[in-house]
């Protein structure tokens, strides 16, 4: 048996791709999403008001504030973004690559979550990630959209991000 590192599905020996979730099982030199202790991830404390709000450009509807590095990533043009980590051997291309922000050691999946705008409202959806997406400390159900409020903090695995929504 080969247990899929992504979804834990048991595939027969000799399988190349997981028949349950489509993850590549062998022959890839790329990093597999690290499993982290979920108890730690749950201890996320909201951090508020510590940083000055960023200035928005005209099209920007929200920004991602990476709490560990202080980096701000503006979201503009499109109304939907996927968040994850680029991995060389696979054709997976998240819209926002979090590799530069310690995504691997924080347990971010290659395709972890999606952000979406509908009118003035912003939603987050976990895409079946290994280590889960947490919103204000609570783990989100995969493939379900959750409403985000301005300055909410969510974490992808252990990577904490604050959402700043333009009013």
């Amino acid at each position: 048996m080969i247990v899929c590192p992504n979804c834990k599905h048991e595939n027969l020996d000799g399988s190349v791709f997981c028949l349950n979730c489509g993850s590549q099982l062998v022959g890839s030199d790329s990093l597999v999403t690290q499993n982290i202790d979920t108890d730690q991830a749950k201890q996320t404390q909201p951090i508020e008001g510590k940083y000055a709000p960023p200035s928005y450009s005209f099209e920007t509807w929200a920004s991602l504030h990476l709490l560990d590095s202080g980096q701000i990533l503006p979201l503009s043009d499109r109304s939907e973004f996927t968040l994850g980590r680029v991995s060389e051997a696979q054709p997976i291309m998240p819209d926002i690559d979090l590799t530069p922000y310690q995504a691997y050691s924080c347990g971010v999946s290659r395709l972890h979550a999606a952000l979406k705008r509908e009118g003035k409202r912003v939603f987050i959806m976990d895409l079946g990630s290994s280590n889960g997406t947490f919103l204000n400390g609570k783990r989100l159900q995969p493939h379900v959209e959750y409403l985000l409020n301005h300055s909410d903090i969510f974490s992808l695995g252990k990577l904490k991000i604050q959402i700043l929504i333009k009013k």
Partner: protein
Amino acid sequence: MMAKEQSYYAILGVSRNATQEEIKRAYLEAAQRFHPDKNKFAGETEIFLEVQRAYETLSNPSRRAQYDALLPPEEKQQLPVEWEVHYSRPNLVRLNEPQMVYILLEIFPSKQSGEIPIPPLNVCLALDCSTSMAGDKMDMLKAAAINVLHDLRPQDVFSVVSFSDRAQVIIPASYRPEKHRLESQIRMLQPRGATEIFQGLEASFREVRSSADGTRINHIILITDGHTYGDESACLELAEEAAQKGIGISAMGIGKEWNDVFLDTLCSRTGGSSKYIAKPEDIRAFLLNEFETLSRVIASDVVLEFSGTPGAEMAFAFRTQPEAGPLPTESPLHLGAVLQDMPLNVLFEYRIEPSLTNQDAVTLLQGSMKPVIAGLRTPIPPIRLEFSRPVSAQAGTEPPHPAIIHSLGRLTLYRIQDKARVELNAGQYELAAQHLKQLATNLLAQGERGLARTALIEAENILQMGGLSEEGSKAIKYGTRSLLMK
């Protein structure tokens, strides 16, 4: 014509170590193809006489031995196609549980193929003209058929059949048709009656067969928008017969109300495939593309006859290009066409039971491939093919061939949606919806936003209504299939 004198073996298209049985079969096939009663082209009677002479010698063991003694040593035969076999793993492992191995068979044109003339076509359009086609679909279909008619090359044979609950030959198989008169006949088509695919298929088969010979690409293109009732098994039998006579069938389904599973099964019996046309305005592009593909064919089909080993089951076979589609898993397999500029790739999945791993090696498949090459006057000998893997105690570390990873990665998405369908039919709604969501995640990862959205909507449909919408179902199936060809 052939530059040097051919051996009797080459004339019959058998290898030098062919059995009497193989020689007899090759003779019967060649005799059918070149019999003087059927001759249409100059020089075929001569070929037939050569075939006769070759058979008279080779079928008699003592005369064959005499002939063999005088035969110059065999030159390495130059085939118009070459092939390669890639395995997903270097060896099987001794295990107490079943295991898998994937095999990619690639058949591609060789350098020699450039010398083969491009074969002329012998194509019949079988047009569904039932009442449901009325309106845009009918108008677009007529325009597309007329377009094809004007694009024909002088050497092509063309016919058109319209069908509903009965069939009518609109244009009998003709060589250099009078285009303007025929155009007005297509324009006069009126929708009426119900869809009975067998009616259309049978009439088209007769038309194509009347001009079918080994020097043309013989093909039926079925275009329909509806389900057929009660005549499915008759259609499948006819497809088997067509395949034996070297006639391919491909199908196009317009809109949502047609039976994709049935048309896939029908076409795959002949090496063809089915396509989904979501909107009537796309009919023209699909039809022109089909003709364009047929005119790039080197081998119109590759027939694989094989036997396996009990306990090493061919669990799945799928053609990933030139036209993606599932294949049956029983011999003989019609693998499909090889194009001038695109190889034929087929992926096989084998499931091996633990009892077989006591041996040193496992033979998965033993058989012969026969490329059907219309541009050649004499057939080429069947190519022997074997899939086998050694067995060791340890798993090999060599990674799968990149071509396998590439095709299998894309095929996995198609299979996840297939799995969701199976689960849905078994009433496992939660699982089916979950798999469609997994599919959506993978599609998003590849930048296929539209298709990902459709998958999520259909996952909701399963949870709320216990089923897929017809449009969504077809969009997901044919959408994930077309990813294979990117």
